[in-house]
């Protein structure tokens, strides 16, 4: 049985495959899995079959890869994936309370979706933002220095149809829309790339240097590159 997928999806799949050397099309598998996840919100058996067909490999080969990576979801997800960092630093700074409170408030556990289908919750490992900890993300966009009350307020806004602005990064799009970007396609919202300024922790060191007039002396961009003697 062949899976029915739109021409648009097939065209996108072709574009993905074309990024890699002709005889190395399997390199396209991770982006293709993001692409099928963009269709259905998870990697379904049909999605696995589609990837297998595009790359000419078996479904078992695709399945083995899909199950290895945390970001490929095996069950349907909501529009909003809420991830709370519970790795050590965020954890001790309050991330565990945030996660526990959300679990209680939403009535779901790790990788589960609320009864109203609005939110999928998960705890996450270090998200490379410890200087903003404790952090959580909605569809991978950061909300910094959160506490339990703030997190509950945030998910309630999401459930009420609002799209709160992340602390850094672009305004929210749905998880499926994000999966298209993960497949390597440009954010089609012009404001997507422009959104988001550097937060204070990011700039702290360089700002201190600027305020105190500190720079590295002796920088001369004309410094010649030494040529080796001909062998």
């Amino acid at each position, binding site marked *: 049985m062949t899976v029915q997928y739109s021409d648009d999806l097939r065209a996108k799949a072709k574009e993905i495959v074309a990024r890699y050397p002709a005889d190395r099309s399997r390199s396209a598998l991770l982006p293709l899995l993001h692409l099928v996840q963009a269709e259905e919100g998870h990697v379904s058996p049909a999605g696995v079959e589609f990837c297998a067909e595009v790359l000419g490999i078996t479904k078992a080969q695709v399945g083995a890869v899909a199950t290895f990576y945390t970001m490929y979801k095996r069950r349907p997800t909501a529009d909003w994936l809420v991830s709370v960092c519970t790795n*050590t630093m965020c954890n001790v700074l309050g991330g565990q309370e945030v996660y526990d409170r959300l679990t209680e408030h939403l009535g779901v556990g790790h990788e589960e979706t609320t009864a109203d289908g609005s939110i999928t919750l998960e705890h996450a490992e270090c998200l490379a933002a410890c200087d*903003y900890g404790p952090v959580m993300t909605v569809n991978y966009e950061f909300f910094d220095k959160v506490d339990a009350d703030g997190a509950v307020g945030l998910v309630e806004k999401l459930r009420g149809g609002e799209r709160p602005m992340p602390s850094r990064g672009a305004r929210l799009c749905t998880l499926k829309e994000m999966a298209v970007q*993960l497949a390597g396609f440009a954010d089609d919202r012009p404001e997507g790339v422009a959104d988001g300024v550097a937060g204070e922790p990011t700039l702290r060191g360089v700002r201190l240097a600027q305020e105190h007039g500190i720079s*590295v002396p002796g920088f001369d961009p004309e410094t010649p590159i030494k040529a080796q003697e001909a062998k």
Partner: protein
Amino acid sequence: MSTAPRREVLEKLTPVLTKRWLSPEAWRLDVYEQLDGYAALRKALAAHPDDLIQLIKDSGLRGRGGAGFPTGLKWGFIPQNDGKPHYLVVNADEGEPGTCKDLPLMTHDPHSLIEGVIIASYAIRANRAYIYIRGEAVNAARRLRNAVDEAYKAGYLGTNILGSGLDLDVVVHSGAGAYICGEETALLDSLEGFRGQPRLRPPFPATHGLYASPTVVNNVGTIASVPYIVLGGAAWWKTMGTEKSAGPMIYSLSGRINNPGQYECGLGVTLRELIELAGGMQPGHNLKFWTPGGSSTPLLTAEHMDVPLDFESVAAAGSILGTTATQLFSDQDCPVYATYKWLEFYHHESCGKCTPCREGNFWMVRVYRRILSGEGTFEDLDTLLDTCDNILGRSFCGLGDGATSPVTSSLQYFKQDYLDYIEGRTPPKLSAKQLVGAH
């Protein structure tokens, strides 16, 4: 109350890679070009590729991804005139707990990485480069993809770049959530469309990397350093840092200080100085333990505040400089619990390929749960050390070794904290319910 750093400590700051972050639109090509952007590329393309490799060797640049391998040497390992395609792969998987320097760089100054990619590709004679970026890093990836598009349109990528005859294609490839894919050979397998599991070495990526071809894998910070070395020269680069650990490094401070954040200093700055730059410890918090370079590097204590944070000195102090992810914990934080959370991480992220790491981390997590729920025994401490003995040096890749770092170092420095749980002086941190739920 945040305290102001003294002048002599402020002078430890070396804003080089972080400097453009102050310009809010430096991610745009036109702004980047106004700020020295692509000047290094023009200069590099006028030089011989071998001279660039020599320049990087002379600069003493060492990898910023954790191991500190000399970059020029790595580039020099790529066989030339072998008729095979060569590849440059940038490791942008940033996942080592505590590490948060590569994402801001790619978000706020993406062209500096791309410029470095082009120069490095020219030096090692690669016509294809991949930037393997951690999947969750969507904002950085968005800026990076935008920058790649801009670079193509401006003729910095594609065919016959700036009339030099160099052809180069760059693909930004998003991962999908697996810490192990930061290990360079697992990264290559992942990039080839497989599960991210490490490869047996030798052969090394320099000869058998991506698609079994000669490949350089370098960290974001390593490659982003290249344009500055090309412009300022090796001697200037070496005015920063120490003799064997040259150049600036972005120290990522998190935890119990007043001003967490990114502080770029010459290699060899001390934690005491970094804390001063970060406005001091938070009120009511006294430094108890810290990681010099992420959770895979053995914990250090308040005794080690004056260790110069360069590759050699940190090793001499019994740890590893790693990614300079400096996570600071205080007397309000429990080293046993901290280690437990890290082990949950290693257990979750173990790729399962080798037994010591797969089984060892599984068992150690259970032992920690027992101790933290007040049901630990003295033998548990021996079990932990025995398990670490079986993992360290016996696992297939650095993930297994790294997992033992917090365990052995916390037992070395904070055995009393373990005993306090076992002997009932510290109330259980995990409830019996969590213990059951954990099985």
